[in-house]
């Protein structure tokens, strides 16, 4: 049995850890609330953009446009949104797994555009090609930064360096559940059968030109919306992880306290027995 001093030392170290996890939980709760309301506000734009582009594309009928057919290159670009900091449970590894365990995405054919340090670490460990590393966007996502990223993605799509573009992020379902998702950004695939009215959409300027201008905005808005969702998910995941850690620490402290008290009682009993035995021996 461990000595009383050892148990005491162990217990106080766990108490220290518990204080940290408790504080982190509180911090991420506050951050979560902020991130959540931001995500809800931009969700409108995100959703309407998705709906509008889908309805536009289903109305134009089948037109040949370079953004609507896959490029010739077998390479695929994936924009992966992870966090800069750890201690968020499975948050980062779930997103990474979405790509490493996907049979359709072959390691050799992928260009990773990594947002967040944790994702970069994981992908470089697995030996993926990291085209861009953008840890700063996640701290304070600005629409203009996302726009720049979209322009770079589209430029390399047009140069024929990549044939398809994907986005991997964590969808914020609610505070306790987040779901990693992989969505295809390019080529745009309109969903079928959602269109109620059969009116044909007109474009000013010409449809090809209009789609040229709308698709970049569509992609930016999806990435931007994904970022907002991911930030909310990150804080939700961290809050949960820290909550678990705090209650685990509590459990360990209880167990150690019990052990400590037993050891203390044991030593008192032993001392008493020794004194009695000693006095008996003298008399």
């Amino acid at each position, binding site marked *: 049995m461990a000595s009383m001093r050892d148990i005491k030392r162990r217990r106080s170290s766990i108490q220290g850890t518990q204080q940290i996890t408790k504080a982190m939980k509180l911090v991420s709760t506050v951050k979560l609330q902020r991130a959540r309301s931001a995500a809800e506000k*931009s969700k*409108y*734009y995100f959703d309407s953009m998705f709906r509008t582009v889908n309805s536009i594309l289903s109305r134009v009928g089948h037109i040949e446009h370079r953004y609507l057919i896959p490029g010739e290159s077998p390479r695929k670009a994936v924009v992966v949104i992870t966090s800069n900091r750890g201690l968020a449970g499975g948050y980062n590894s779930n997103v990474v797994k979405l790509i490493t365990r996907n049979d359709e995405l072959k390691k050799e054919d992928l260009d990773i555009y990594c947002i967040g340090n944790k994702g970069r670490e994981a992908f470089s460990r697995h030996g993926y090609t990291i085209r861009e590393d953008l840890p700063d966007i996640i701290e304070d996502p600005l*629409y203009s930064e996302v726009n720049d990223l979209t322009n770079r993605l589209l430029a390399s799509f047009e140069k024929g360096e990549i044939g398809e573009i994907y986005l991997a992020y964590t969808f914020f379902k609610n505070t306790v559940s987040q779901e990693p998702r992989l969505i295809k950004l390019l080529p745009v695939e309109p969903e079928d059968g959602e269109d109620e009215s059969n009116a044909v*959409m007109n474009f000013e300027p010409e449809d090809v030109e209009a789609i040229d*201008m*709308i698709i970049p905005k569509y992609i930016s808005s999806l990435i931007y919306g994904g970022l907002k969702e991911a930030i909310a998910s990150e804080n939700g995941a961290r809050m949960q992880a820290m909550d678990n850690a705090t209650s685990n620490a509590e459990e360990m402290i209880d167990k150690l306290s019990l052990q400590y008290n037993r050891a203390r009682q044991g030593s008192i009993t032993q001392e008493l027995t020794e004194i009695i035995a000693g006095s008996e021996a003298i008399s």
Partner: protein
Amino acid sequence: MADNTFAIRIITPERVFYEGEAEMVEFNTTEGEIGIYPGHIPLTVIVKPGILRIHEKEGERIAALHSGFAEILPDKISILAEIVEWPDEIDEKRALDALQRAKDRLKDRYENLDVARAETALQRAMARINVLK
């Protein structure tokens, strides 16, 4: 469809900018300024910097609309705007500075000047200043 108004929604990445009923909407597009009444044929237009006028029953509201696109349907309009501002959100001094800067750039025409960008900046600054007038 309600008599002669239609639903209009203006959304930005950060917020829902405006949502309501209007009799007519005017704004600037790549093809020129347009005014839309209810019952318009389905049309998608690309927004260019300019003044957005929303004619409500009670009166007119104006805002500076800079970029985005609009989906027009007979009974509603959705404008997905990247940047749009009410007059009281505009910093006049900044707009004036930007106007001057854009004008200088276009006048000097030094090498490597991104003319399209400078022109957009000019239009944007002008839209802001016009809204304030």
